[in-house]
């Protein structure tokens, strides 16, 4: 089909890194206005949502970021697509820094190559626009198909690519179910012929039977168009199904990073192990599980040292004082002193 040919000049399987995230930080200032601080004698309140995160995504791969609420996964997604400026660190896509290239033209070119699919397909589509206008918008904005008739054809192609009828373009978003709306959102994301798509919890608002449809579609499109995904999710079973590589976040830090198979077969970080242990699974009926103690601490005032130490069964004195660096274990990286080769 013509779309597969036009969508991506770089063929799938091309080696090399497409996205590189280095030392990414994001601090939110939650302080009261300075006069209040002066009168109430209070200091500034800062929340470190993302703390020194590094990872790289290879072309044609799916990199998944998993974490519970407050882990910083959505903040990272926003910084990667260029919706939220980082406090420190860099994001480069295909060698261009997302946040350094300030030239308008350069930024436009960059924007075209990155697209995003959001969690809630009820909020991410304009209810007053026909589907055709929604899907055609990126094509117009980037002036990819100037001819109106040809543009309409292209929208039809995109709709059939995501499993909808080209005639659906005449309808409004409210005429579709949640799963179909997410297909429209995917068609819109594909319209600018991107090479990199950030999927922020794309199936968490959907029912299981429909979730499977969307996950299969994303996988199929990746194969056909050679797309690269950053997949954000809290659902480990879903991540296991789509990811090539997985990064596990805990309170803004990437605590473990590994090829998906390795991570699920042999999780290294105590938090990853706990998380995998906690997932309710249909294959586990009637099994009494070990409950994990504690909850995620308040990110405004996280524990010192390793953030996970108050809940960790292996915590040592060192964990309470020092922040563990990244130790390489095979193809994986883990921020835990248990893997310190020089430990005594």
């Amino acid at each position, binding site marked *: 089909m013509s779309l597969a040919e036009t969508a991506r000049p770089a063929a799938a399987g091309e080696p090399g890194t497409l996205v590189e995230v280095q030392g990414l930080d994001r601090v939110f200032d939650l302080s009261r206005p300075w006069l209040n601080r002066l009168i109430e004698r209070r200091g500034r309140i800062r929340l470190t949502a993302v703390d020194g995160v590094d990872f790289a995504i290879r072309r044609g791969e799916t990199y998944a970021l998993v974490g*519970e609420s407050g882990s910083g996964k959505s903040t990272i997604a926003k910084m990667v697509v260029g919706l939220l400026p980082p406090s420190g660190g860099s994001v480069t896509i295909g060698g261009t820094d997302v946040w350094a290239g300030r030239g308008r033209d350069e930024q436009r070119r960059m924007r075209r190559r990155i697209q995003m699919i959001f969690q809630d397909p009820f909020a991410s589509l304009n209810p007053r626009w026909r589907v055709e206008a929604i899907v055609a918008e990126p094509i117009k904005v980037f002036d990819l198909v100037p001819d109106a008739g040809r543009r309409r054809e292209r929208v039809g192609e995109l709709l059939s690519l995501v499993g909808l009828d080209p005639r659906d373009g005449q309808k409004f978003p409210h005429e579709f179910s949640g799963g179909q709306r997410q297909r429209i959102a995917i068609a819109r994301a594909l319209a600018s012929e991107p090479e990199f798509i950030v999927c922020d919890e794309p199936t968490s608002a959907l*029912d299981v039977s429909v979730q*499977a449809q969307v996950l299969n579609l994303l996988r199929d499109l990746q194969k056909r168009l050679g797309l690269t995904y950053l997949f954000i999710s809290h*659902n480990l079973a879903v991540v296991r*199904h789509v990811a090539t590589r997985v990064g596990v976040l805990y309170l803004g830090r990437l605590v473990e990073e590994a090829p998906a198979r390795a991570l699920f077969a042999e999780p290294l970080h105590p938090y990853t192990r706990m998380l995998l242990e*906690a997932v*309710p*699974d249909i294959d*586990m009926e009637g099994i009494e599980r070990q409950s994990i103690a504690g909850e995620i601490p308040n990110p405004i005032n996280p524990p010192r040292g390793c953030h996970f130490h108050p809940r960790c069964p292996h915590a040592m004195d060192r964990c309470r004082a020092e922040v563990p660096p990244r130790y390489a274990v095979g193809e994986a990286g883990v921020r835990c002193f248990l893997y310190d080769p020089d430990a005594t």
Partner: protein
Amino acid sequence: MTPTLSVRNLRVEIPTRRGVLTAIDDLSFDIAPGEVLGVVGESGAGKSITGTAIIGLLEPPARIAGGEIRLAGERIDDLSADAMRRVRGRRIGMIFQDPLTSLNPLYRIGEQLAETILTHERLSQRAATDKARRLLEEVGIPAAGDRLSSYPHQFSGGMRQRVVIALALAADPELVVADEPTTALDVSVQAQIITLLKRLCAERGASVMLITHDMGVIAETADRVCVLYAGRLAEIGPVRDVVKRPQHPYTHGLMAAIPTLHGDPDETLRQIPGAMPRLDAIPPGCPFNPRCDFAYGRCGSERPEPLDAGKSRAACFLHDADAAEAPPADTVRAARAVGLEVPQKVAEAAR
């Protein structure tokens, strides 16, 4: 033994300007004393509305239009609002998805617990506060005595849900209706809450109706499962059977669509085509027939009743041994290939 809860031919209707919608149609099930019944289904299946019908909190204009609900043998669906209020809380405890909506943000936790206890029991204020403290200890809240004077916002999500469990159990109810009790919580906290709920209800001998969309939670918690589709019963049976050997084509599709932590991650997930019908567009016959791989002639016109199917009961004609119209032979073969226990009689009659 009299079941703790018995629902017979329940029908819930919602009158609208464009006609009457049937949200629940001819639903029957029992919950035995001490049993945990899981109620699953996707959004719009009618699980929550079943729960609210049982506790008598259907939001008008929705109304019970037929059938019976019995609590330990006594009818509760026709009670006056006043009488029902005494049943709720005292004999049926409730846990909802969002703990913040169940707790009053303006009252201290201790006051809310003591108030609930005093509504249902004749105790002195001091004895009620004492009982409140013991309840908080039981649900695993550290320094329970001090936390009595805290407000709901001072608790984390998991701790709030523990308080809600304490509230639900305050009057030692016979039945606890828990509607998506862990959906708003993080995975690591979910497991704690489920384990706690299960343990406390078992200790008190309370039956539980656990409503959730999460099959994983059901698989680990429930004794039996009731699967709803478009307001109707699709399948009901022991949890192990429904999960491992589903007998309704919908349940079968649902189980295969769930990504798990086992099995081959590269395998394509099974998907059910289409989506659950809206209440104003439920197809005639079996509501699942337009999405079903095994649908044949009568599925589009006749409505299947729940029939014996393996150790479960499933509302599917493939299990109808006395049918006049047998399904096509290759449908039977395909259904058997995926594990549906089509009776021998049906297979022989198949053309």
